[in-house]
Each structure stands twice: as structure tokens, then as C-alpha cells.
């Protein structure tokens, strides 16, 4: 077996790549967004009631230990061949990372800052929205970066559910079925490029939304 790339095939499948990208992007964007909203609520809860945190990480950790292939396989007969089957495991996998990151973010806010906010007469909600959330942002985005990159990789496995799932993973699974190397490599390379691209994009967004971090690093 020789490793050769069929460039002709690649050039005729640019449209399919676009379609798979949109699929992949959709899966990841929905899973991470849902996961972030859920984990933000859980993190605020755990931040205000520290007793909640250990069982919360234990449960999300337990969900995280279930291999993705197993999760997709077991949900298929229950939720059918719908996007829900792919989204449930992808979303739950983000929870462990995001809950920890969000709680770490809140905990990183210095006590003096909170006291100052209280002293200025902020209500609990104002303090959360104007002080705690912005200061927790860098660690939260670090969590989103990790969750996004992980989800991009896991979404490829969803392609075993069928051709409407898994985005770039579809190329890998179909390529394996036909033992067509060019297609296997296409799927693998595109998903890796997407993971790196998303990571870089999120670093850029992090800098954009936390301008003060840069100024402080510059003066230090």
C-alpha cells in the first residue's frame, strides 16, 4: 500500500468540504454554547454554595469518563438518528471543563475587589454582572477554549451515527469504509486544522474582551 493523495478527487469535493464544515461547526457551536449556559448556572450556584462544588465535579467527572463512542452508541436507539443523539454527549462532555473553569474564574476575583464593590453599594446582581463576571472572564475563556477544541475532536466520532453527523468525521468514516486514503486524510487534517483555528480565534477573542489584562502584563 502506498500513500498517495488523489488531488483530482479533492478538487471535485470542495463543496462537500464546505457542507461538512457547516455541520461540524453547528455541532460544536451548539454543544459548547449549551454547555456554557448550563455550567455558568451551575458555577454560580457552586460559587455561592461551596458545598455543592465537590458533588458537582464528581457527577460531571463521571459523565466525562464515558467514552464518546459508547455514549453515541447507547443514545442512538433512544433519541434516534437526530442531532440530539450527537448533541447530548458533546454537551455533557463540556460540563466538567466549563464548570471547573467558571468556578475557578469566580474564585480568582480578589476579596478586596468584592469588598470595594459592596462598599460602593452594589447589589448582589450588579456585583455579579459588573465585577465578578468580567474579572472571571479570562479563566472562563480558557475553559471555553479547551471545551471547544475537545468537542471538535469528539464530534468526528459522531460520524459513526451516520452521514448527517460528525462533520469532517464523515470523511474519515466513509474513507475507512472504502479504504480510500485521500478521504481519510482529508477528514483528519480538516478536523485538526479546525481545532487549531478555533483555538487561535478564541485566544484573539480573549485578548479583545479583556483589554486590561494586556495593559497590566505590559506594565508589569
Amino acid at each position, binding site marked *: 500500500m502506498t500513500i498517495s493523495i488523489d488531488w483530482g478527487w479533492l478538487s471535485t469535493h470542495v463543496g462537500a468540504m464546505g457542507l461538512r464544515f457547516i455541520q461540524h461547526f453547528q455541532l460544536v457551536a451548539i454543544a459548547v454554547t449549551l454547555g456554557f449556559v448550563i455550567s455558568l448556572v451551575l458555577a454560580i450556584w457552586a460559587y455561592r454554595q461551596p458545598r455543592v462544588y465537590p458533588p458537582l465535579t464528581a457527577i460531571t467527572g463521571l459523565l466525562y469518563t464515558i467514552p464518546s463512542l459508547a455514549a453515541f452508541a447507547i443514545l442512538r436507539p433512544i433519541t434516534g438518528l437526530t442531532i440530539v443523539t450527537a448533541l447530548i454527549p458533546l454537551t455533557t462532555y463540556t460540563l466538567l471543563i466549563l464548570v*471547573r473553569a467558571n468556578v475557578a474564574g469566580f474564585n480568582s476575583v480578589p476579596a478586596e475587589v468584592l469588598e470595594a464593590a459592596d462598599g460602593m453599594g452594589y447589589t448582589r446582581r450588579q456585583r455579579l454582572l459588573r465585577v465578578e463576571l468580567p474579572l472571571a472572564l479570562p479563566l472562563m475563556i480558557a475553559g471555553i477554549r479547551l471545551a471547544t477544541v475537545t468537542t471538535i475532536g469528539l464530534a468526528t466520532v459522531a460520524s459513526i451515527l451516520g452521514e448527517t453527523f460528525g462533520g469532517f468525521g464523515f470523511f474519515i468514516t466513509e474513507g475507512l469504509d472504502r479504504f480510500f486514503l485521500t478521504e481519510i486524510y482529508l477528514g483528519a487534517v480538516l478536523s*485538526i486544522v479546525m481545532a487549531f483555528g478555533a483555538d487561535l480565534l478564541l485566544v484573539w477573542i480573549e485578548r479583545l474582551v479583556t483589554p486590561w489584562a494586556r495593559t497590566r502584563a505590559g506594565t508589569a
Partner: protein
Amino acid sequence: MSDLIGWFVDPAHFSGTGSIQQRLLEHILLSGASILVATVVGLPIGLYIGHTRRFANLAINIANIGRALPSYALVVMILPVSLTLSPEYGLDPIPTFVAMTLLAIPPILVGAYAGLRSVDADLVEAGRGMGLREGQILGNIELPLASPIIVGGFRTATLQVIATATIGAIVSGGGLGRFIVDGIHNQDYTTVVGGVILVASLAIGVDLVLALVQRRVTPRGLQLQQARRGQPPDVAMPIPTADPA
């Protein structure tokens, strides 16, 4: 449900090739071997970087690359290369094994680095002031204090490895993923669920054992400190840097 219980007690599933215990053994052996190789490679590098604080940015970048590598993509990318190099083992188990090892190195390396970094610099200075050699500082001060985080890196690596071994069954080879992949192909739901239960139990079981190890290796002083200050730092989290690379 009764089908499922039937599947687990059927003597046919416990004999011959493809028996439950054979698949379980394959899964454990492959996972253990790749963790071993990854430890031999990743642990010394992580300890070196953590102790000397040199090449720290490199370590963080390696870790980020490791996180961005999808395991499924990695297995299939190694497949053609390994088939060319070794027709006999190129399909099984080399691609899965290599992917598992590559994916296990970053968490182990970062665990060692982050663990040593978490040690109070004053303690290391005090050790140096008392005339301890670098090896003694590493062995007697840094390693004990860093051990919970180092074991944390192993927990992450082990989970990753067990999951990747499962995915490896899509390509070929043994392990518990075989039940899941074959079950999906044959539309045999009972086998799928049986496989899922076995894999999930293995993953959760191993993680619990490592969690106990983690607790046992945590020095008492550190336990008291953690009880006061909250949770220990987490290896699964990216290491925050002032200026992201």
C-alpha cells in the same frame, strides 16, 4: 433489559476468541502499555521543565497541540504509515497504540510540570539554603508536594487512553470497543449496550482507583492546606499565562 442480563451471563460470551474477558484483557494491556511508554517519555521531560523552569512555554504549547489532536483523526492518520511499515501489525494494534501513547504524553508531561510549578518557591530556596543537592530538592521537597497534581495528570491520560482504545475498534483490532462497533454494524443493540457498560465501568473503575491513589499520595500538610483554601489546582485546566502564545 432481560436481553442484556442474558448477554452478560451467556457462557458463550466467556469462551473462545472475542470473549468478554479476552476483550477486557486486550483493552487493559493496550492501555497499560501506552501509559507506560508515555510515562517513560513524558514524566522525565515534565519534571525537568518543572524543576529547571526552562522551556516552560514549549511545554504549554505541546500540551495545547496535544489537546487539539482529535483521537479518531490521529488513529486513522497513523494507519497507512503503519500498514506500509509493518503489514503484520500495521492494522492492529500499532495505529491505536501509537495514537494512545501520543495522546497520553501531554497530560502526563503537563501534570509533572504543573505539579512542580505549584510548589512554593520559598520551600525550594530553603532546601537549597540547607545545602540539599538538586536531586534531593526534587526527590524530598518537590515530588511529594507535587504528587497530587502529577497523579491528576495520569488520571487525565488514563481516561483519554481508555476512550481512544475504544475508538480504535472502528479501525480494527480488539478491546472492548469491538462489541460496540460490531454491535452497531450488525444492529445488535444488546451487544452495543453490553460493550458500553463494560467500557464505562472500566473507565470509571480505573479513575476511582487513581482518585484513591491521588488522595493517598497527598502529604498531610498539603491536605490540611487544601481543606482551608479549597480545591487543588486542576491539570485538566489550561495553565493560565500572562501572555498567551
